[in-house]
């Protein structure tokens, strides 16, 4: 049996661990609150943007006269042969099953698509997601050829994709989650839209952790392109959190003082009406032009929002995980203290018996 000194040392070490996990929990809670606020503040813009698009769609001059189809490359549905999957995971570990849940959901989706004979492009976002595919997945190769003519006065560039394997990493964004910024997302979408327009990919999906509130989270696969209906999320697969996870999340949120309800956003009201007034707008530019310029922005805000929600979910997962760790540490301290007291008592008893029996022998 261990001696008192060893046990005391162990208790001290577990106490230190508990101190750290407790601190981590509070930090995560603060970060979660901030992330939630950011996600909420981003809503007016996204809503206003999708409203303008919806009101523009109602105008007839966007449609092709013969086929009656709307004229925009991002709305055209092709047969899905090459699928781009954007996998959004976290930057760090210590967040329970957060990262592995995403990896699993992504893998399921990829397997399913592979069975249908489709090829997959991956675009991991966040350090952990990048790490998932670092080892075993080939990197996509693009060849850019320049063709000079007119005595080198002008150059024509063409980009050709050389696909060697069925699953390849098209691009990676390890540091995008440090501070989710619209410029970075915009650049990423710009690139994706270019690939979509030259038919290198036929559809785009995002795998991420949706976050409405601490108790309303799920891992979803959302279709981003082609856009079938504006202003409507198209979720193709999702996985709700289990009852157990929910309870753990509620307990963690409660002890860290985070609300389990979604944040109220009352400031979005006037933006929610953006572009929807029942009046005949004067369009400063041709509606077709407006529509054309807005579409990539719409995709950008959708993905931006997914990233913000995922960031909030990561902090929430870390808060829950560290709360569970603190609780485990507490249990361990209790049981170790009990053992230590027993051992100490046993030693005392033993000593007394020795004295008593020694005295009796005299």
């Amino acid at each position: 049996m261990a001696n008192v000194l060893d046990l005391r040392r162990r208790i001290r070490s577990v106490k230190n661990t508990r101190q750290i996990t407790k601190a981590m929990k509070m930090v995560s809670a603060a970060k979660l609150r901030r992330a939630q606020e950011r996600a909420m503040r981003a809503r007016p813009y996204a809503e206003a943007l999708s409203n303008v698009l919806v009101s523009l769609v109602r105008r007839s001059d966007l449609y092709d006269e013969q086929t009656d189809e709307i004229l925009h490359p991002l709305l055209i549905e092709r047969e899905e042969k090459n699928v781009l999957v954007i996998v959004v995971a976290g930057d760090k570990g210590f967040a329970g099953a957060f990262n592995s849940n995403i990896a699993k959901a992504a893998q399921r989706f990829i397997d399913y698509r592979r069975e249908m004979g489709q090829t997959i492009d991956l675009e991991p976002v966040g350090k952990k997601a990048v790490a998932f595919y670092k080892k075993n997945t080939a990197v996509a190769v693009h060849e850019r050829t320049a063709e000079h003519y007119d005595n080198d006065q002008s150059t024509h560039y063409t980009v050709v994709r050389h696909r060697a394997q069925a699953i390849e990493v098209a691009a990676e964004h390890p540091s995008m989650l440090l501070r989710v910024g619209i410029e970075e997302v915009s650049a990423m979408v710009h690139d994706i839209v270019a690939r979509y327009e030259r038919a290198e990919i036929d559809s785009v999906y995002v795998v991420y952790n949706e976050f409405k509130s601490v108790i309303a989270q799920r891992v979803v696969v959302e279709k981003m392109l082609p856009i079938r209906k504006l202003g409507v999320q198209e979720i193709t697969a999702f996985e709700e959190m289990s009852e157990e996870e929910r309870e753990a999340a509620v307990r963690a949120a409660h002890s860290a003082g985070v609300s389990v309800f979604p944040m109220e956003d009352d400031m979005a009201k006037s933006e929610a009406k953006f572009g929807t007034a029942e009046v005949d707008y004067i369009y400063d530019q041709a509606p077709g032009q407006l529509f054309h310029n807005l579409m990539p922005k719409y995709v950008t805000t959708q993905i931006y929002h997914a990233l913000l929600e995922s960031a909030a979910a990561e902090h929430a997962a870390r808060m829950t995980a560290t709360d569970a760790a603190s609780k485990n540490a507490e249990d361990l301290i209790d049981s170790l203290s009990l053992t230590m007291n027993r051992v100490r008592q046993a030693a005392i008893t033993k000593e007394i018996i020795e004295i008593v029996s020694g005295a009796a022998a005299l």
Partner: protein
Amino acid sequence: MAEVSSNSGLLTVHLVTPDRLLLEATAVSVELPSSSGYMEALYGAAPLLSELGAGEVRLHGGTSGDQVFFVAWGFVEVLPERVTILAETAMPPSEIDVEEARQELALGETMWNEAGDDGKKYEYANLMTRQAEEKLASAKDTGTKD
């Protein structure tokens, strides 16, 4: 258009960026940098939707005084009593980083030179250059230090 009953004669102006609602204020008139040139909206203006270019949004005569914001790219909705500006980038001129703007300008020019006959790249380079130029102009107007 029927006159609004609460005829205060003031426009409500909202400036929204992708991260947040930056400004909620009132104004007698608002100057807006539409992509086809500056325009000014007054109370009771006809409903209008327009794309924004790069430049300054100037609010005049509101309850909180005149205000200027640098904005770039986005959309604006003008209604008789309300103006809502959706801007991709928006900040007060005092927050403009002149050094960064200069770098952007240089980058835009390099991109323009390297664009070849790729129309999209030209367009992108032009947008970048324009934004940087407007940024610098805006910063100069208010006498921001280098």
